[in-house]
C-alpha cells in the first residue's frame, strides 16, 4: 500500500478546502487540474479568488497543494483505496473527498502522459522516408546500373538526416531490426517482465 506524505505546510494549505462550500471547493480543484495540464493563468487565480471572495494567497497555496497531490498520485498510479487513505491526512469533507477522487480518476491517464513527456528520454524517431534510384553514370564511370537508396530520417528533436545506402546494407539492417523486434516477444523478456512486476 502506497500513501502520499504531506508535510505540515501542505496539510495546512489543503485543509483550507474544509472551510469552503462544495461548489467553491470543486472550482478550486478544477483550477488545479488545469494548472497541471499547463493552463496556468495567474489572472484566473486572481479572478477566482475575487469572485469567491477569498484571500488570493490561500487560494494559490491550495492550488499548489492540490497539484502536488495529483502529481504524486498519478506518478505512483495510486489505487482508489490508497488515494483515499492519502487524502485522509487532510480530513476533507465527504463531498470534497468524492470530488478529489473523481478528478483523480478522470484525469490520471492524461497526467501520466504529461509526466512521461517530461521524463528523461533520447530523441525518438518521427519518420523514415526512402527513395530507390538507379545510378546510371557519373564523371568517372558510365554504363552502370547501381541501385541506390536515398533515405531521410526525422527525429523528435526536429533533426532531419539525409543519407544513402546500397541494397546489401539496407537488407542487413532490416534483418538486424527484425531480430531486435523479435526480442520483445522472446522468453527472456517475458521472464524479466514477470519478475519485475
Amino acid at each position, binding site marked *: 500500500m502506497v500513501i502520499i506524505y504531506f508535510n505540515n505546510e501542505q496539510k495546512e494549505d489543503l485543509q483550507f478546502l474544509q472551510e469552503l462550500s462544495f461548489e467553491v471547493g470543486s472550482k478550486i480543484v478544477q483550477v488545479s487540474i488545469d494548472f497541471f495540464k499547463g493552463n496556468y493563468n495567474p489572472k484566473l487565480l486572481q479572478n477566482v479568488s475575487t469572485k469567491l471572495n477569498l484571500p488570493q494567497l490561500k487560494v494559490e497555496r491550495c492550488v499548489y497543494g492540490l497539484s502536488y497531490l495529483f502529481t504524486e498520485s*498519478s*506518478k*505512483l*498510479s495510486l489505487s482508489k483505496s490508497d488515494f483515499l487513505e492519502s487524502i485522509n491526512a487532510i480530513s476533507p469533507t465527504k463531498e470534497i473527498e468524492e470530488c478529489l477522487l473523481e478528478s483523480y480518476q478522470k484525469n490520471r491517464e492524461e497526467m*501520466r502522459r504529461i*509526466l*512521461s513527456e*517530461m*521524463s*528523461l*528520454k*533520447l*530523441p*525518438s*524517431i518521427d519518420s*523514415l522516408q*526512402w527513395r*530507390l534510384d*538507379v545510378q546510371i553514370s557519373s564523371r568517372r564511370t558510365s554504363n552502370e546500373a547501381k*541501385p541506390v*537508396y*536515398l*533515405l531521410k*530520417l526525422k*527525429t*523528435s528533436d526536429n533533426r532531419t*538526416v*539525409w*543519407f*544513402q*545506402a*546500397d*541494397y546489401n*546494407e*539496407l*537488407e*542487413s*539492417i*532490416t534483418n*538486424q*531490426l*527484425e531480430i*531486435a*523486434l523479435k*526480442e*520483445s516477444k522472446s522468453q527472456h*523478456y517475458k521472464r*524479466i*517482465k514477470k519478475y*519485475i*512486476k
Partner: protein
Amino acid sequence: MELSKTNLNSLSLLKKIPKSVHQELLSLIFGVLLQQADETEIEKSQSLKQIDSTLLKEVFSGLITIVIQAVKANLNAKSLAQFLKDTSAPAEFAGLLVTAYGKTFQKIKEIHLETTGFYLKKLIDINWRMDYIIKSNKIEQIDKPVYFIDLNLQKKDGQIEKLKFSCDTNQLQDLVTTLKDAVLAKKSLK
C-alpha cells in the same frame, strides 16, 4: 591548384597595402570563410576603410579564392607554404596566411565542401539495444520496453558519424515495415 592570373596578381598587390593592416585583412578573410563575419566588418574597421576600395576588393577576392582552392585541393599548411614561395606573395604575409590556414582549413572544408558536394553520408552499420523502463523520477510503474538504435554513417573522407535515436515497439514495427517495403522495391526491379 588552378588559379587565374588575376588571383595570383592579388598576391603582389599586397605590397600596396600597409603591413599594419595585413593581420586585420587576414582575420576578415578567415572570419568570412568560417561564416563568423561578413564584409560589413570593413565598414567597422578604420584601417581597412582607408584602403582604396578597388584594390581591397581585388586582394580580398584573390585571397579568398586561393584559400578555397587550397582547401579543395586538400593542401596542408606545409604544401600551401611551398606554393606561396613560388608566387609573388610577401614572405611575412605568407607566413601569417599559412599559420591561419593551418588552424582553420579542416573547419573550412567541413563548412563549404560538404554543403556543395553530391555525396551523402553512407549507411554502413547498425547497433541496437533493448531496455525495459521501470520508473523515472517523474513517473513510476512505466513498465515498457524501449529500443535504442545507433546508425553508423560514413562521410566521404571516411569519418564516421553516429546517428542515435530511441523508439518504442510500435515505432520499431513501423520502421521495420518501411524498410521491408524498400527492400522489396529493389527485388521487383531486376
